């Protein structure tokens, strides 16, 4: 009897295969979504860390899996998209080794201390990604962390021998097809049917994140003379950018050019308040007395002698009061009065302290990394050597109003170039600057939350304060998909960004 039952059930089961529930319009049936006039069969993404899926200060596997190109490629599969390869690193720690020596830190994770304080810490562990032993490209994702516009077209940028000198990039060296190839050449060798290009961020960002310690190279059209933290000349940018687009577009049915967001939209510059120093009335009075001579005699004397303008003297006045105060800082755009003061008989160390001294003001942006420095002792043996009060905050921790102006001018020029080339070459254009400003100013609502750029809790930015979280990258992917659908009459579905993770929680030591 049991056999009979089994046979009957088995026979019936065969009959049922054709009876499974089927939708009137199944999404997984070919033709439900339309690629329009674009061909997604061989999508290639070119860019920097943002394209690579860099997050939390490192490149690690799950970050790469949540890169915006990988998310987009997943959606392209609904409309003819093909395989999308990525140069996945070896682990989820993120650090890099060069011949066995660690040259890049592991990722940040959010850790909770015994006192309940939450702070980003480096995830502990021995990284296993060896630059000299990487997979060989090219890959569909050619996002190279750290690359500037002209790097993509620079031969030797992937030569491991040049990494320590700064001439080459470890992330490209890991996957470059040869020592002298270029990122663009490797990408173009894939003959992309569709491409995205998002480059130029680092042409201003490294200047900005380093607090403007670099040089604005506007006017210098030889990028081989640039330092790592310099601003790229807009004409250099326009020239290489145009070549790069041409190389990628040669074989492509279409492509997307993405512009450069404002630095003031990212939490690296908006998290630490400018009035970061709390003082009580007595301390403020005591500190002010230290600067009384400087305010009342030195500055007016310098103006009278014609060394500085009255305007600069006003900007250099130091004044603390009870409550939250602006820290003192070194500003390399001020006249360096150190030699003048020394000539006046002021001790050298005091003269150096006052040399380019002013108080931070509301036009400045203090960078995220200053949070671990502000209020600490510059010299552990000197209790009142408090950074921001008695010792100026280093120039690298403040992006001043003047420096922001240089960044804004350059990025406006880049963005004009990007939009212009998108127009002239009939490519889709994504205004990432506007999209990110929306995230920063009020946020973007999604199903189940609001995406903002508030550090750690806003959901959009990872713990390095610069790079997006998976959720931020998903928002980026949706923004680009919108532009593709509009430009190419495609109907690529977007993703549910609430399903993508934000920052990673982890304590290095076991918790109780």
């Amino acid at each position, binding site marked *: 009897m049991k056999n009979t*039952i089994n046979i009957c059930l088995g026979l019936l089961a065969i009959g*049922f295969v054709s009876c499974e529930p089927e939708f009137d319009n199944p*999404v997984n049936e070919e033709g439900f979504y339309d690629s329009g006039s674009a061909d997604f069969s061989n999508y290639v993404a070119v860019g920097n860390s943002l394209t690579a899926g860099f997050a939390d200060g490192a490149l690690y*596997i799950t970050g790469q899996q949540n890169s915006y190109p990988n998310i987009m490629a997943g959606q392209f599969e609904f409309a003819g998209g093909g395989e999308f390869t990525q140069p996945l690193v070896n682990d989820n720690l993120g650090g890099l080794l060069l011949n066995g020596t660690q040259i890049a830190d592991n990722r940040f994770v959010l850790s909770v201390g015994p006192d309940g304080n939450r702070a980003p810490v480096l995830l502990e562990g021995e990284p296993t990604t060896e630059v000299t032993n990487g997979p060989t490209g090219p890959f569909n994702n050619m996002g190279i962390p750290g690359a500037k516009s002209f790097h993509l077209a620079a031969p030797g940028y992937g030569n491991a021998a040049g990494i320590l000198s700064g001439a080459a990039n470890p992330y490209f060296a890991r996957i470059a097809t040869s020592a002298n190839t270029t990122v663009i050449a490797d990408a173009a060798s894939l003959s992309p049917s569709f491409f995205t290009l998002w480059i130029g961020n680092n042409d201003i960002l490294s200047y900005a994140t380093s607090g403007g310690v670099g040089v604005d190279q506007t006017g210098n059209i030889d990028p081989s003379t640039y330092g790592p933290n310099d601003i790229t000349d807009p004409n250099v940018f326009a020239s290489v950018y145009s070549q790069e687009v041409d190389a990628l577009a040669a074989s492509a049915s279409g492509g997307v050019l993405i512009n450069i967001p404002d630095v003031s939209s990212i939490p690296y510059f908006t998290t630490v308040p400018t009035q970061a120093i709390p003082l009580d009335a007595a301390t403020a009075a005591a500190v002010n007395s230290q600067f009384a001579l400087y305010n009342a005699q030195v500055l007016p004397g310098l103006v009278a002698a014609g060394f500085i303008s009255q305007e600069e003297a006003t900007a250099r006045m130091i004044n603390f009061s009870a409550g939250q105060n602006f820290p003192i800082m070194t500003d390399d755009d001020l006249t360096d009065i150190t030699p003048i003061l020394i000539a006046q008989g002021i001790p050298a160390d005091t003269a150096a302290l006052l040399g380019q001294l002013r108080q931070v003001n509301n036009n400045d942006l203090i960078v995220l990394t200053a949070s671990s420095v502000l209020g600490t002792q510059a010299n552990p043996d000197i209790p009142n050597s408090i950074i921001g009060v008695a010792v100026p905050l280093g120039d690298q921790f403040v992006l001043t109003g003047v420096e922001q102006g240089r960044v804004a001018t350059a990025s406006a020029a880049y963005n004009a170039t990007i939009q212009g080339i998108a127009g002239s070459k009939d490519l889709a254009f994504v205004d990432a600057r506007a999209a990110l400003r929306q995230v920063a100013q009020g946020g973007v609502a999604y199903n189940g939350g609001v995406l903002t750029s508030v550090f750690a809790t806003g959901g959009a930015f990872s713990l390095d304060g610069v790079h997006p979280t998976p959720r931020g990258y998903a928002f980026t992917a949706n923004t680009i998909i919108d532009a593709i659908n509009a430009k190419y009459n495609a109907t690529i579905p977007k993703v549910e960004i609430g399903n993508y993770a934000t920052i990673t929680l982890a304590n290095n030591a076991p918790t109780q």
Partner: protein
Amino acid sequence: MKKVVLLAVFALATVVTYAGGYRVSLQGNKALAMGHTGVAVVNSAESVFFNPAGLVYLENKLSISAGVSGVFSTVAYQNEALGTYAETDNPISTPLYLYASYQATDWLAFGLGIYTPYGSTVEYEDDWAGSHLVNSIDLQAIFIQGSVSLKVNDKFSVGGGPIYVTGAVNFNRNLSRSLTDLEGNRSEVTIDATGVTNWGWTAGFMFNPTDNLRIGANYRSEIILEAENGDADFENVPNSPLTPFVDTQFDASLPLPAELTVGLSYEFCEKWTFAFDFNRAFWDVYESLNIDFANPQVPDSENLRNYKNSSSYRFGLQYDVTKMFTLRAGYYFDETPVRDGYFAPETPRNDSNGYTAGLTVNVGEHFQIDASFLYLHFKEVDASYDYYFDQGVRAPFSGTYKSSAFVPGLGVSYKL
């Protein structure tokens, strides 16, 4: 140690496959072939379940019926805006029944039933789009029922008895839409409870105004399944005080709703029988599925259900072709207890239409083979579950669902 509750909760989740909530209306091949009617039908020991009052009218000293069904069910989900698609890969479940009726005297009969009116397995692909609501559910519940049937006179009888339930449940879902460990594995919880037991009862009457017409009514009590100290197993949880999910015990309760069935059967043209049942299930008792974790650091889980009472309408027809063969067919309409906005993928259940057929073959004087077939059809429906909260913010899970179930069944009856 009544661990029934959780069971019940998850039983609800299995509604997909069958009629009514997490009910699995497959309690007899003869009845199922007639649209699962039976409250006013007297033809076998299946009356132990459908209406014990009818047992006393059985013509044999001893009647035994046993059978099994094979449930082939699939739920498909898609969201056109997102391109997400999922289809359950449910193992075949095999609800069973065994009924026996013993005619002690002309006016008194005893019955015993073992059956599985709740129980199923629903398995979505791990980490699918709705994995924060359910990855998989496995519910098993066995009902054991004793019955007494008393004939008041030739036209009227009453019957009823106690029901003992023992069950087990295993349920897995992801902790949220996005939480993972460092390697990107989704954080998840599995709760497991076995040996969840509780008691209920059933009672009914049968009235035979003429030789051809029977009228019946049967009430089955609510049974609250209360799982206590079940095991909650958390996996892939980040090592952080901010995610304090550690393995612990849990309590939960799930109501199996009361239901009332009234109906009639009518014999005509000698060889034909028509049956109609109206069934009302009092699902409004199922307001929320709450899981109370023993460890105070582990946040409790509250899942609004807010079911409404629902009705089903059942029609069946029987034709005695020859001495050897009896043919049956039926239809029922089953109203969903799920309200708009409460459509969860663990219970993706909208109104359904059931089409049934079957036959009995007499093998000798004492022995019968009963076969039945049910096709349960759900219309494609756009629906959402609006009461999932992501860090306090409402995050509806919506899409299009389509379900169906094919249930062949085979049984035997023995009469002495």
